[in-house]
């Protein structure tokens, strides 16, 4: 069973739709109790960093998430803003993040050498930088859908799980222990994302 956190930050309909289509059980959770009893949890999110962190705090979800991850190793998958919130903070806001992964989120910068449009919006391939169950048997020519203006910069390069390019090389996925973040939207990435969500369904503490 995958629990998907519903906390008023972005829609979770697409994630539930895709997990169900992939043949796995899932349910939305929104309370501290729901988090406390989750087998594995997806933390979605679209919007600004402080908006997301405040929404977690307002619902009393910050401590239950930390407790579940740190004390019982609950697999946690942060998606998009949900991945950024796994870090210690972001240049987009002033509030601290969940802090599972050391580092901060920085804004993409367009430079004369590498002029880019921000946000990074579109499909990119990713390059695994180390082994991880979510990246096992990645299909050839896999591609994932990204929409973001900020990207996570890990303090420890070993926390990067996969890289992608947009003007610069950035972290498409990050991970430490049971915590994984995907900057892209697996729920909007056709069979490539569906395969990844299926693999998350198989992760156990």
């Amino acid at each position, binding site marked *: 069973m995958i629990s998907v956190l519903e906390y008023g930050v972005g*829609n979770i*309909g697409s994630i539930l739709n*895709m997990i169900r289509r992939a043949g796995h059980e899932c349910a939305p959770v929104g309370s501290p109790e729901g988090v406390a009893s989750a087998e594995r949890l997806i933390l979605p999110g679209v*919007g600004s960093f402080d908006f997301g962190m405040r929404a977690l705090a307002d619902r009393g979800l910050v401590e239950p998430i930390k407790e579940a991850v740190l004390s019982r190793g609950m697999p946690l998958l942060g998606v998009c803003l949900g991945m950024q919130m796994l870090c210690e903070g972001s240049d987009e806001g002033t509030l601290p993040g969940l802090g599972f992964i050391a580092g901060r989120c920085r804004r993409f910068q367009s430079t004369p050498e590498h002029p880019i449009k921000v946000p*990074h*919006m*579109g499909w990119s391939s990713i390059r695994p930088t180390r082994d991880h169950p979510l990246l096992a048997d990645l299909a050839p020519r896999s591609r994932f*859908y990204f929409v973001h203006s900020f990207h996570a910069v890990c303090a420890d390069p070993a926390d990067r799980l996969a890289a992608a390019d947009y003007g610069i090389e950035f972290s498409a996925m990050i991970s430490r222990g049971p915590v994984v973040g995907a900057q892209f939207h697996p729920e*909007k990435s056709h069979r490539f994302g569906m395969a990844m969500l299926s693999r998350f369904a198989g992760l156990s503490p």
Partner: protein
Amino acid sequence: MRPRLLPILLLSDGGLVKTVKFQSPRYVGDPINAVRIFNEKEVDEIAFLDIDAHRTGQGPNFALLADIATEAFMPFGYGGGVRTVEQAQRLFGLGVEKVILNSVLADDPDLVTRVANSAGSQSVVASIDCRRSWLGKYSVHVGGGKRSLGRDPAEYVREMERRGAGEIVINSVDRDGTMTGYDIELVGEVASAVSIPVVAAGGAGSLSDVQAAIKAGASAAAAGSLFVFHGRHRAVLINYPNPDELDAIFR
């Protein structure tokens, strides 16, 4: 990153239609069926525009959009009849990524800002329909291309960017459904006016038209007829280039 290529599908009375120069809608099929086929073809993105919803004031057909969203495993945009942040929120709740605003912006341009503040700029697309006068001057039109705002498109899209739009769709009414190629000059003017992504629309008849739009500065190209018609007699056949074809045109 490869430029995006997306079908824009027009909804009317719960069915899919395709217009020519915003006129004479022709029925081309069922939207749910179309989404399933585009899923199989692994399209980059898909957008639905309800061409009646603004004029009739009925607003989005939420029941239909919920069904479409359940089938859409790709980014999904919707436009037509959205006048409030609450309607936009409801669409996001269904699984719509991007709300596309067009005619409403003539009277309520601040809606861009309000939706962006509630869901982020990446969720708000300002879609601009333009016509070219016999003097060669472009002007922004609303209301299904019928009403001129007398505004220069470059200046208009800059305002939309300033107000918080995350993306612009620039559509040529004169080229719509003609399959004679995008209005490249218009695409270039608009793309160079803003720093947010610009989607070219209106007129695509081939993948080389798509190439030209990207070369002119568009970040993505949209098409209707190209993806729903086949052959000289415009038989209805949903199609989309495969990954090899896409790599070839964007190499």
